[in-house]
């Protein structure tokens, strides 16, 4: 637990450092300087941190409670859609059709009035509640049925995958009232601040960093608690935990619900930064990718999962830009190699080295972090 704490602390320090350095490098360093951080890179960092939050959510249930959900991208997307609905309402009469109430796509589809589930999304506080509540509610209903009838392991994974696939098909439909194929885009502002302004973006990144740090602390508090110990017991021997008298279903259910709403919040932070949300966010491959971030970083370590998300996505940005042909080969190979040779991920690799050399996991994290930071700064300007 101690070394985990040190690595975790290092991770927190890194997040705080990013939260401070990124705005400074973007706002106060002149564009001519080599240390200037472009807004594009800034947004990219924000995006990676959203993914890191999603990875935390996946790691909390997979790494600690042994629940492999292949539907977390769906919770992520639901949170994103809730935020998107708020942002759509903020556009107001500035849309192409200029309707003060209805978003463009509804005018286009000849809708006469706002459907009931859109009511209230002009208030930010309402959107905030929905962002966490809808994924949580879905997870509650789904998990309640699944855990109660002891759908576990692979079956649970396939069910969650089917769920997210069904949601994707549903959101692709035009008459669902969520913009169909195109989803939501062309956002104008959030809480009255222009979304295209650099300052708004800086604030969004800082908020995301704060959210990431807070989620990390929350997850760590959970896994360090008595309940956390029980999660590990469930992961390693579910029947034994049940026979010891614990209500395994309830524990699994509430950690699943918490994880889902965490994913929803990550999605909500993601949407204003990338500026679009559409049904392809529900695609099953996205959920599986989130799982691979966790596997690469190190399952059951939290900070490793978050760093894994950043690393894999940085690689994705690099490959899709430089060698688009090779990205899927690389990602595929990553899946195979990590499962075959790195069952504990990069953190496991670091821990093995730590045993050999008398260091700590922290320097590894530092090294990884600074590498990403530096190369981001240098490459993505």
């Amino acid at each position, binding site marked *: 637990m101690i070394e985990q704490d040190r690595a975790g602390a290092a991770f927190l320090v890194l997040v705080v450092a990013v939260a401070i350095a990124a705005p400074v490098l973007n706002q106060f360093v002149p564009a001519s300087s080599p240390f200037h951080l472009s807004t594009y890179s800034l947004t990219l960092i924000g995006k990676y941190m959203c993914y890191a939050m999603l990875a935390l959510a996946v790691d909390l249930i997979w790494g600690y409670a042994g629940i492999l959900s292949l539907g977390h991208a769906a919770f992520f997307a639901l949170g994103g859609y809730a935020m998107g609905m708020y942002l759509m309402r903020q556009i107001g009469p500035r849309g192409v059709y200029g309707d003060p109430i209805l978003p463009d796509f509804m005018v286009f589809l000849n809708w006469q009035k706002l459907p009931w589930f859109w009511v209230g999304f002009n208030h930010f506080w309402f959107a905030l509640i929905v962002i966490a509540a809808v994924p949580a509610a879905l997870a509650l209903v789904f998990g309640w049925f699944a855990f109660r009838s002891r*759908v576990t392991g692979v079956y649970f994974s396939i069910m969650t995958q089917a769920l997210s696939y069904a949601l994707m098909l549903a959101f692709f439909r035009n008459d669902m009232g969520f913009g169909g194929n195109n989803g939501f885009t062309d956002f104008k502002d959030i809480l009255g601040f222009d979304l295209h302004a650099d300052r708004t973006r800086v604030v969004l990144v800082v908020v995301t960093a704060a959210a990431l740090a807070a989620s990390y602390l929350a997850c760590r508090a959970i896994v360090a608690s008595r309940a956390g110990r029980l999660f590990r017991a469930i992961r390693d021997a579910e029947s034994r935990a049940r026979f010891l008298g614990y209500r395994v279903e309830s524990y699994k259910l509430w950690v699943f619900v918490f994880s889902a709403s965490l994913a929803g919040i990550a999605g909500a932070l993601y949407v204003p930064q990338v500026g679009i949300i559409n049904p392809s966010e529900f695609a099953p491959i996205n959920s599986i990718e989130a799982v691979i971030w966790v596997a690469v970083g190190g399952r059951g370590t939290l900070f490793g999962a978050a760093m894994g998300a950043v690393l894999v996505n940085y690689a994705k940005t690099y490959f899709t830009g430089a060698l688009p042909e090779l990205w899927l080969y690389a990602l595929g*190979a990553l899946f195979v190699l990590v499962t075959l040779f790195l069952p504990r991920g990069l953190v496991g690799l670091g821990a093995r080295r730590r045993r050999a050399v008398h260091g700590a996991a922290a320097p590894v994290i530092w090294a990884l972090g600074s590498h990403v930071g530096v190369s981001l700064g240098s490459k993505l300007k």
Partner: protein
Amino acid sequence: MRQLQYENQNVLGTKLQVTWLLLAVILCPARALAQPPLSDVGDVRLVLGELREASFVEKERIVERLSARGDPSIRPVLSALLEDRLFVRESDHLIFIVKSADDSLTSLELIDPVSLAGAGSASRDDLTKIGTNNQLRKRLRALVARFDLSGPDAAVRLAAVEEILRSLDAESLALLRARSTVEPDAGVREQIEIGLGLAALDSGDSRARLDAIAALTRTLRPQVRNRLAGLLERTADGGFAESDERVRQAAAQAVHAIDRWRTFYGVVETLFFGLSVGSVLVLVAVGLAITFGVMGVINMAHGELMMLGAYTTYVMQLAMPNHIGAAIVLAIPAAFLVAGVTGVILERTIIRFLYGRPLETLLATFGVSLVLQQLVRSVFSANNRSVETPAWMSGTLQINGALSITVNRLCIILFSLIVFAILLFVLKRTRLGLDIRAVSQNRAMAQAMGIRTGWVDAMTFGLGSGIAGIAGVALSQFTNVGPNLGQSYIIDSFMVVVFGGVGNLWGTLVGGLSMGVVDQLLEPYAGAVLAKIFVLVALIVFIQRWPRGLFPQTGRAAETQA
């Protein structure tokens, strides 16, 4: 038997002659009073010669005269005229049929219109086409159809009946009536009766109309139903289209009966559609039932193995562009080999290190699926490839007026049942199947009995993968062959296996077929996408209630797997 047929033909022949006689008798008084019927071959040549300078109206009279003789040997001349293949040789003003009047030909091959023997060739400059107009062509088509009505081929006769029904007059009615008494083919007879019945509905005699309705009740065609329903409608002045109360009642009953049967056949058709959709599901899932159900490997690359099978079909067609049908048949073993070998390699290099860790196999095989997709993109490009459907797999079978089934759907049902039966045979009746079952039930004991479990694992996985390849061949006939082919089926395949019960092939069959039927039953009400969503959600709920599927495994083996 041969003797019998011969006699039969003879009987038919005499009947035909009777028909022609009848035809001649009917036609003669109408038009041929001024011109006596042609008696011999010389006359035919003479009359044909008149075509050269005749106006369109005269031409029509000439062809009437020619066909009035009732000799079917005139049919080639009529159809040649209809197809712009009747020419005059300018040098001697003789009429010839040309074999082909294709624009690319400079010299045309001639056929004598009476003897139908070859008559050398002539340059295009020496020949003048005998022109036709719409009116004449319409008349020609009707005349040709009359000759076809007594042709030997039932399909030709059916087409002829349909052609005649398009423009009914007193003559053709009589012709049809005569034909219906001698027509041997039930389908053609039915078509004639419908035509006669529809015509009789217009007769002034209400008794005849009642009879016609009684006869038409047996047919299920939409055109008949609409015609009968039309009798019940009110005209603009408030009266009924049909004046007789009894006829109206009979028509209402007939429409009701027809509607009931059409609804019934509609359900039959939906069931058939559902079974065909379900067969596709069975086919894509049955390979997974081996790798996932028997071996417990979460093979996310299953869809990509199907994709390999589909691309194998594409390559086979590229290699044999002139034998599309043979290429498809040969693609079946080829796809089995390609996908099977890929599966064996996969098992030996990756999966065997991950037994007992299902979630890890899921991730690793997903990685493999990404690599295979990208591989196909690199080799064949990201665009979809078109795989052709052989002629014998397209078209429809018309069962009756209300029910027709497409041949390719029938093929897929049969194909998946055959694949299923073979797989069942391999598992239950062969040495390999025995080994597979032994290893899946108790690995340690099987090993102790001397079964090479590693080899059996590789073969089992290869078998499941090979079946996936075969499924790919079938899919290439239905969907786009592209890098994403596998992804669109992988979730369905898993749902079928989980629904049917892991480790149970029969469960996969029943599960796949019932999913297909439910999907098709819902589709008219909910639309394709919503039906699919509904099926997925229903399955999720089903699995919550019965986590082990329709046919759960029982006994000790099931417990050790859990």
